[in-house]
């Protein structure tokens, strides 16, 4: 049990930044460049850990606390999620609600931390983040309803495993719709194109990046690392559902899961390479689209009978 937990957390903590590297490499491939090294995200985080902090004179302790809380929430939420064959170290009835609320807590603190600086740019980013996450959360809950209905459970690890992936032949369309809408939420929640561009150069158009404009040193490292872990965990939910690994041995399942994660990162890279960022007032339409997809998914489940 003890080694299981260490293995579980260790895998997530060590492999998360790799996803960012894979995405960057994919984008570079599409652009015909070599791109930054695969481990660039690790270098960036390591660099930040060796840097001092600059705090704005306007800010209070909230500004300093938010990054630590943000990283802590994503790390703790990861123990609720299975990694293929590696079972979730903790699971209980209704843990999914805690899982979602953790992200809510992190987001709330990030938003008020950015308002703490009194900068109009960061206020803008905070306002956008608040809107998009509101809509994204609704879609997320609809997706969870689909999973809950299909598995008859309210436990994250059981909603993702077991019954769910073995009933592919019964509920394929519902899974596909759910996967598609969840993918859009994933892009929105992790500040990827087409919702937000992590590599943009204009503060005026940014969402997530502009919120953390004033953070530096360890705080920024926490934020950067936290967003990598968040991508891994939220992406892991999707991979657990969509990549069928039922009936394999636990170690094989974990292997298949990690392969799925790489595929997911490639997928995000492809989307980022093929699409431009949407205009800000178009983003709600994208999320409403995701909502409709998930709603159809729920209807499909209901019509098939539960």
């Amino acid at each position, binding site marked *: 049990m003890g080694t299981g937990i260490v293995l579980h957390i260790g895998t997530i903590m060590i492999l998360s930044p790799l996803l960012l590297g894979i995405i960057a490499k994919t984008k570079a491939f599409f652009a015909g460049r070599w791109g930054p090294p695969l481990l660039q995200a690790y270098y960036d985080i390591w660099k930040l850990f060796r840097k001092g902090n600059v705090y704005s004179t306007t800010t209070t302790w909230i500004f300093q606390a938010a990054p630590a809380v943000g990283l802590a929430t994503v790390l703790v939420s990861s123990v609720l999620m299975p990694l293929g064959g590696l079972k979730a170290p903790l699971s209980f009835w209704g843990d999914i*609600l805690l899982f979602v609320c953790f992200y*809510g807590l992190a987001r709330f603190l990030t938003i008020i931390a950015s308002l703490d600086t*009194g900068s109009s740019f960061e206020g803008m980013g905070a306002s956008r983040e608040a809107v998009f996450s509101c*809509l994204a959360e609704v879609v997320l809950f609809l997706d969870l*309803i689909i999973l*809950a209905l299909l598995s008859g459970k309210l436990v994250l690890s059981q909603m993702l495993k077991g019954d769910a992936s073995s009933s592919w032949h019964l509920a394929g369309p519902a899974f596909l719709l759910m996967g598609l809408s969840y993918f859009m939420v994933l892009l929105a929640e992790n500040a990827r194109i087409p919702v937000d561009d992590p590599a943009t150069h204009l503060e005026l158009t940014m969402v997530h990046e502009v919120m953390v404009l004033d953070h530096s040193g360890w705080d920024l490292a926490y934020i950067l690392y936290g967003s990598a872990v968040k991508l891994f965990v939220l992406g892991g939910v999707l991979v657990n559902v969509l990549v069928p690994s039922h009936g394999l041995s636990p170690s094989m399942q974990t292997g298949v899961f990690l392969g799925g994660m790489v595929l997911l990162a490639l997928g995000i890279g492809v989307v980022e390479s093929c699409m431009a960022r949407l205009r800000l007032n178009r983003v709600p339409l994208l999320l409403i689209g995701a909502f409709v997809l998930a709603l159809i998914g729920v209807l499909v489940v209901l019509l098939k009978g539960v």
Partner: protein
Amino acid sequence: MTIVLYSLTILTSVLGMVSAIGVLVTGVPVHYRLGLRMPLGEFHVGIDPLSAFFLLTITVLFLLAGIYGHGYLKDQGKKGLNAHYAFYLLALVSLMLLVTAQDAVLFLLAWEMVTISSYFLIVFHDDRKTVRDAGYLFLIAAHTGTFCLWLMFFLMGQHAGSMDFDQMALASFPATLAGVLFILGMVGFGVKTGFIPLHIWLPHAHPAAPSHVSAVLSAVMIKMGIYGLMRMILIIKVFPQWCAMVLLLAGMISGVGGVLYALGQHEIKKLLAYHSIENIGIITLGLGIGLWGQIEHNELVALIGYAGALLHVFNHAVFKGLLFLSAGSVIRSTHTGEIDRLGGLLKYLPWTGHLFLIGSLSICGLPLFNGFISEWFVFRALFEGMFHLKMDALVFSGTGIVALALMGGLAAACFAKVFGAVFLGNSRSLDNTQLKESSRLLRVPMAVLGGICLWVGLFPGTMVSFALAAASTIASVKLSPAMEGVVISPLLTAVLVLFILIAVTAILFLFKRMAAKCLPVERAPTWGCGYSAPTARMQYTASSFAEPILRIFRNVLGYGVKGAKLQGYFPKTQEVSSHVVEASEDLIFRPAFGAVRSLCAKLKIIQCGHTQVYLLYIFVFLLLLLVWKIV
């Protein structure tokens, strides 16, 4: 005199609290019948777990808000404080009577006393016209509701043959009658509680009242409608299924509508008032799914739903009380409640600011605080409803889950807006250095409420078992230890995870602290993206913060911005204002009441002012009565 009333208030609430806790811990209801017979009924009071739960909520809030109020009003320079304290005490006593009354007539009597005493509490600043109007509106709305309640209780009494709640509970009500009673109850109690579209008095009365009164108004008085509905469910027991649907729908509409309207507000207390409507929506969702479970004889769904609703009643009372009290502290220090005029108060009013933050985190249902516990229950009840109930319940509880998720997100946006604009950044128009933190008399009650928020959030066991006891009373089932385990044990694991979260956060924070010792730490102005002369007025305002959300829902809200167009290369000063349309007030009730008024104006013809004519009217009326009697 003041000191007598003050100590009586404290004594009454402490005694009430002790007896409520006594009943909740032992689980043995107490009853008291006074032999004195009143017309139509009897003086019969009793505390069952349901009453006790509400009694606890009432007394905790009245005690703390009372202490706060004493400090709040001290230097207002207004005469007649004694009358105010007397009405405060009367409100407390009548609320206690209301939740302990076991007889319909006594209940209605107490209901009326609550209305009257709240009216006098609301119109404390009766030199202002807006306050008088708000009080008047409250009085009209409350009495319109009471009218339905009289009808409801008389129908119940007529069917059961007694006005005593115990006797009524023994009778079985046919489905049609139960439906009619339910509708009357929904309207009658709904006006008090503030279901959209019956909520119109709420956003006017709350900002008009002094802050400690707004706190008890929002925390306790509007909950009496919820208590009434719960008591009604306890008595009638068997409802047609559409009643649960109506409750769930009312919950969704009030919840989402309340928070959307709140986002459009610019005044802090008005915003909080709309949030009360949102939280009533959450409570009603729990109540609705609980009723559905009861109708389909599923104890688990019924218990979790009711317990969630009850727990949210208590939690909302605590955090909304806290928010109103700290908003009052802000208004007292700065003399304004306009969100866009404030800013950066956290540094100058640290107690108020941090307690407001605790309240905000709680109301958003975020983990570590009490709002999360009750929202977790309501969410769970809705999910259990999906698993255990039939198809149509599945659709409704699924919609309920989505609505609750939307409410959570919007509430977070709304409180990020308020907290960010009022307490963070720099002041937009005031000189903050002149501000003084409130006195200890104001801080202590707020701190206690904040403490309760954290206590329930991290050690929910006690309050959950109290809520379960009350829930099993409503559902008329016996609570088995096995059932209690099914309900509570996942929650305790969740709380364990919360402690892990605290530990991990502390470790990460410590690492950073240690690193900060050997790394350079500088203080510098906020990065202005290259602009070298930023001013505080350039900060993002609360109105701009909420604008994107309001724009998405503009058709529902009637959201509009006036005067945002700038012209020319060197535009002159421009006024910009944004507002939401209060649809039910402006589009439904105002025209409807206007029509009634013009109709009544036409009847003025018969009022000519001659005594003889009035005597003639009486004579004609008597004649008609005689004819009716003979025929």
